[in-house]
């Protein structure tokens, strides 16, 4: 067994040594393809950060006709809180609303001179759980609230919600299509590069078959080689993506994100980096397997 492994390692090493240029090309294609995917991933990741930030603003406000008593507030808060879509309920009293209004007006606050909190209604501010922060979720919640006559005066930003939904949908669709396309293109290119390395060794592959090598025996070192190349390519892609991130994205995204009130620009998390390396390995392995089918016919 140990002998077999050693023999296998020798064969892989020999292959790598024999065609360093093609080997480098294979690693290079994996690295470049995955760097592009990672770059794109980082952009999506950070845009998602923004949309998550924005989605916190998705609220439903129920204006109350009269100032409720403390026990009423408690009962209503509990009732709303029990609804499945709701993350948080905050009661905003007339005084509180008036204070906020004053603050918002800033230097113009003197306009309010002579008026008291009674000009503004008290309200329940309802924040939704993240999965419901869209048009459908808001719709459901509003429907539920309307069943209670106390919450008949509801506001939410219908038009904004529609646009937000469309934007998120577009982002997801674009991500799936573009990401899928990139992965497919990467697989295609990697498979073809590996096909070149196999083509360079077609005599060896043919003779191994003719002198009684089993399909497994012939293929294993090539599969291993492909996986290894993919692994190295994946590691390089993480490094490459980090380089691009530092050099290009950080500044570019910072401008965009700071406007949106996000101070921290994300790089791929450790699991995402590992996923990238795993994707490289899988790419190399699949690429070899696909090409080998054409070269090994026993």
């Amino acid at each position, binding site marked *: 067994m140990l*002998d*077999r492994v050693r*023999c296998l390692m020798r064969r892989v090493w020999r292959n790598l040594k*024999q065609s360093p240029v093609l080997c480098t090309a294979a690693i290079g294609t994996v690295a470049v393809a995955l760097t592009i995917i990672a770059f794109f991933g980082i952009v999506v990741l950070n845009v998602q950060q923004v949309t998550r930030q924005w989605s916190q603003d998705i609220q439903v406000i129920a204006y109350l006709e009269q100032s409720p008593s403390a026990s009423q507030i408690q009962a209503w808060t509990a009732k709303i809180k029990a609804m499945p879509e709701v993350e948080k309920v905050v009661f905003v009293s007339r005084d509180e609303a008036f204070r906020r209004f004053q603050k918002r007006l800033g230097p113009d606050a003197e306009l309010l001179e002579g008026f008291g909190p009674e000009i503004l209604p008290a309200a329940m501010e309802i924040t939704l759980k993240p999965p419901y922060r869209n048009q459908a979720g808001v719709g459901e919640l509003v429907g539920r609230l309307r069943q209670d006559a106390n919450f008949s005066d509801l506001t939410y930003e219908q038009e904004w919600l529609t646009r937000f939904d469309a934007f998120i949908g577009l982002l997801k669709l674009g991500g799936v299509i573009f990401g899928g396309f990139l992965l497919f293109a990467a697989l295609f290119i990697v498979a073809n590069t590996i096909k070149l390395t196999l083509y360079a060794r077609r*005599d*060896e592959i*043919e*003779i*191994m*078959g*003719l*002198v*009684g*090598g*089993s*399909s497994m*025996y012939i293929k294993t070192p090539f599969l291993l080689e492909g996986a290894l190349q993919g692994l190295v390519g994946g590691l390089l892609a993480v490094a490459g993506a980090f380089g691009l991130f530092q050099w290009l994205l950080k500044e570019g995204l910072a401008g965009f994100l700071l406007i949106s009130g996000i101070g921290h620009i994300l790089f791929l998390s450790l699991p995402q980096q590992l996923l990238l390396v795993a994707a490289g390995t899988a790419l190399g392995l699949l690429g070899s397997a696909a090409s080998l089918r054409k070269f090994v*016919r*026993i």
Partner: protein
Amino acid sequence: MIQICNVSMSYQKDSTALIDLTIRIPKGDFVYLTGASGAGKSTLLKLLYGAEKPTRGQILIDGQNITRLRSSRIPHLRRRIGIVFQDFKLLNSRTLFENVAFPLEVQGRKRFEISTKVYQALKHVGLHGKLHRFPLQLSGGEQQRAAIARALVGDPMILLADEPTGNLDDEVTQEIMELFKGANARGTTVILATHNRDLIRQFPRRVLLLDKGRLKEDYTP
């Protein structure tokens, strides 16, 4: 024992390379396969080592029907057969030693065993002084002998040789025929495809004459 029963083979729909061949080759026989160019000699050899399948008929080797073999069993068939190819099929990037070691390595034999056997096989063909040369540093006759050493290193039951004396001079041809006779004397069935009539005259053995894919004559001179 090789039994070829009503075998036909065509590469394309409209042409046939072999037509209704029925041949028995007992164990330990020495047979020439002869006929004009395109008669189907190489094709018959390919059927015997499982590189092609007949379109009709059966081929049995020691009672095992190799036309029904699953592709995963073909390597086991080939380990019992030594093949000398017309174009040698030596790997130019490997030394002579490595080339001859190939069939044993593929079978996962132990390194010590491989060294001993390869050395013996090369000694047998008189090339043990050139272990570390590459094929392109050898003469045509030496390459041919290297190919024979590789075919014989695994002690095959059957030796298939396709034009093994193709463009070699008389002296080298003699040497090579001695190698085949030697292997045959040790019990290996030898099938040798050639269109060299002088060879058959010099070393008379059973002759299978193919003509446009048909067995025209089967005689022992």
